[in-house]
């Protein structure tokens, strides 16, 4: 058992705080895009997730995700209630920081993931069934997938797939669930006939800025050590976000005649999503390519939604799904052991089979998450009714779900 490093511990604890700040970031990012009558509900969906999942994580979630392996599929229950998760390091995960620091860092990831899903559900989901879904989903979908990819003995980790900071565990996973949710819930009332336009884009940009800021903890913190790799991950994270914001802005300028604020904000998030799995394996110039491609491809994916007919209200699939898949596959192209000796060389460094491993690492969680999420959404829908009534939807969810309104002017 190694000794605790003060520098690494300080860095990971601070990174955990940065990642915590991302969930309110998601809340604001989404809240500005809905109509004013649903602003509080949209914030509440994320905020309630932060509370609920943090509690759940300490009780059972962490043990299921990172506890001693059971068949490569899931952790066992020996760390329930954080039993045995001590101030000393756990060498399987991070040899120089307290096991508790690793557990809380991972807990922030577990919290933000269901918050991402809410973008597909806003404007029409009932609060209580939603919370029930989050509890079930966190334990039955998030924890297993986290175990597959990151847990000691997890089967995707054993395949040799690369996911530095959670491109598949967090983003592809959330996007698949979001698609399932949008399908079970159905379209927002008034889609195509009313102006379902953002009510407060300044808070959306505030949210995007909080995400960009917090993402340094998400990606650089995933080095779990205050070292050169963390610096590398920090730099590529910033570059990909910047390149994607510029790419989206430019493409929209060409396509629609004006660059938009919402486009620049959405673009940076797309770039951040795409660099997430790659951040610990690629150097700065590939990061620019990953970011630019993510910005452009996600722009296309978001527009494609209108042809496909499902109402993923705030484009969780178009941004986190498309960005997550692009990022995971490009990780297999650009990854280099010169950046991270613990990683692997990708397509450009003579290992085309790396892309295939990445494909497996994307498709398995995507399929698992979509099927399970569809079943869970259907289950809570059967028991409690997932969608608000016609009248509640017209009145707004702030008043009907929470007895309050966002703006009293």
């Amino acid at each position, binding site marked *: 058992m190694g000794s605790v490093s003060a520098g690494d511990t300080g860095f990971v604890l601070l990174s955990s705080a940065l990642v915590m700040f991302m969930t309110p970031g998601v809340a604001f990012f989404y809240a500005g895009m809905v109509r004013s009558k649903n602003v509080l509900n949209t914030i509440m969906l994320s905020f309630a997730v932060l509370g609920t999942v943090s509690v759940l994580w300490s009780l059972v979630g962490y043990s299921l995700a990172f506890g001693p392996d059971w068949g490569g599929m899931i952790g066992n229950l020996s760390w329930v209630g954080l039993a045995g998760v001590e101030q000393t390091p756990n060498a399987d995960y991070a040899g120089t920081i307290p096991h508790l620091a690793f557990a809380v860092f991972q807990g922030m990831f577990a919290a933000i993931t269901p918050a991402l899903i809410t973008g597909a559900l806003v404007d029409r989901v009932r609060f209580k069934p939603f919370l029930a879904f989050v509890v079930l989903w966190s334990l039955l979908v998030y924890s297993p997938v986290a175990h597959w990819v990151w847990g000691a003995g997890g089967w995707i980790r054993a395949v040799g797939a690369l996911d530095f900071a959670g491109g598949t565990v967090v983003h592809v996973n959330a996007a698949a669930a979001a698609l399932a949710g949008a399908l079970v819930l159905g379209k927002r009332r008034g889609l195509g006939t009313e102006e379902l336009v*953002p009510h407060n884009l300044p808070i959306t940009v505030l949210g995007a800025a909080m995400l960009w800021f917090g993402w340094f903890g998400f990606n650089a913190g995933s080095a779990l050590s205050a070292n050169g790799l963390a610096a590398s991950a920090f730099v590529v994270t910033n570059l990909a976000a910047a390149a994607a914001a510029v790419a989206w802005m430019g493409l*929209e300028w060409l396509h*629609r005649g*004006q660059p*938009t604020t*919402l486009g620049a904000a959405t673009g940076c998030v797309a770039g951040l999503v795409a660099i997430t799995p790659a951040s610990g394996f690629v150097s700065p110039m590939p990061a620019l390519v990953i970011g630019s491609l993510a910005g452009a491809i996600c*722009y296309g994916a978001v527009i494609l939604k209108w042809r496909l007919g499902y109402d993923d209200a705030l*484009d969780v699939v178009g941004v986190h799904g498309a960005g997550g898949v692009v990022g995971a596959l490009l990780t297999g192209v650009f990854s280099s052991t010169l950046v991270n000796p613990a990683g692997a060389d990708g397509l450009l460094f003579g290992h085309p089979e790396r892309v295939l491993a990445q494909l497996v690492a994307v498709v398995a969680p995507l399929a698992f998450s979509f099927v399970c999420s569809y079943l869970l959404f259907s289950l809570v829908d059967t028991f409690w009714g997932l969608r608000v009534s016609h009248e509640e939807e017209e009145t707004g969810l702030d008043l009907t779900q929470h007895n309050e309104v966002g703006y009293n002017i």
Partner: protein
Amino acid sequence: MRKIEAIIKPFKLDEVKEALRRVGVQGLTVSEVRGFGRQRGHKEVYRGAEYEVDFVPKLKLEIVTSETQTEEVVEAILNSARTGSIGDGKVFVYPLEEVIRIRTGERGPDAL
């Protein structure tokens, strides 16, 4: 007495207010309103998708005048609010039955 309601372009408010002051208008009420006429709405773009927004933001002014001053006030509004392009708005004139100043209870033209 007459009540004059004018729907105008929001950026014209200051010019209209000054013009009304010059002809001696003592008070007016302004509200932010949305609506459409021949101008129709406008286009907004969010994440690459175009939205037709039917209702355009306008300001509604309400002014009460004596019958003799009505034409002068209407002319002041027309001259100051006009840009010549579509969407300049409209002026409505109504007969007004009674005006009462709440503080003193004065009625009619005295309360203007």
